[in-house]
């Protein structure tokens, strides 16, 4: 069974500083990896995904993530944080190969990002 670990419940960063939200995963075979953001009282918004190819994936709102197969990680990054980036961030994984349950996403517990003015 697949799993996702987001080791930090909360990340605090000053506005203008770079931010990193960590994610590691466990899945049989190759993974498809995703990051989503959830603002208060809102649904989930897609940020970016890794399917194949370049390990550095660029997504919405200036976010990017780097796939590291050897470390089974997919950390979310942004060079310069904005106060408006403050939200709850979820990492998710699904196995690349077809099979029972392969289409469902497994989510991490989420990391609350607070960007301090």
């Amino acid at each position: 069974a697949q799993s996702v670990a987001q080791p930090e419940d909360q990340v605090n960063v000053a506005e203008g500083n770079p931010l990193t939200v960590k994610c590691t995963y466990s899945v049989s075979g190759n993974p498809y990896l995703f990051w989503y953001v959830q603002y208060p009282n809102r649904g989930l918004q897609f940020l970016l995904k890794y399917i194949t190819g370049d390990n550095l994936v660029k997504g919405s709102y200036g976010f990017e993530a780097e796939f590291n197969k050897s470390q089974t990680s997919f950390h979310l990054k942004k060079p310069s944080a904005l106060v408006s980036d403050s939200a709850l961030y979820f990492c998710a994984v699904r196995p690349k190969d077809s099979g029972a349950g392969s289409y469902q996403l497994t989510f991490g517990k989420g990391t609350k990002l607070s960007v301090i003015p």
Partner: protein
Amino acid sequence: SAVISQKPSRDICQRGTSLTIQCQVDSQVTMMFWYRQQPGQSLTLIATANQGSEATYESGFVIDKFPISRPNLTFSTLTVSNMSPEDSSIYLCSVEEFRDGYTFGSGTRLTVV
């Protein structure tokens, strides 16, 4: 990417009653997923709904408690039956739109009193 209309956006319900949540997609999709997000928690998959077949439920979720309908390729409903305060959560539907990532509805915030 697909646009999902989910309603109601929120509701406060009496224990012992049932609530049906609707998701309408603006395009035909094969798979729809229903998730629960308990307060302060991550998303947990309740079931996968394919058109024309019974929904597939995850461990810990049963059809009697969470009946699902999928009458066509653009619509699905999830009913939360015989509600208790423990059912207070956000419920979200999702569709597989792989090229654009999975798309989620805006969620239904349910409070059971």
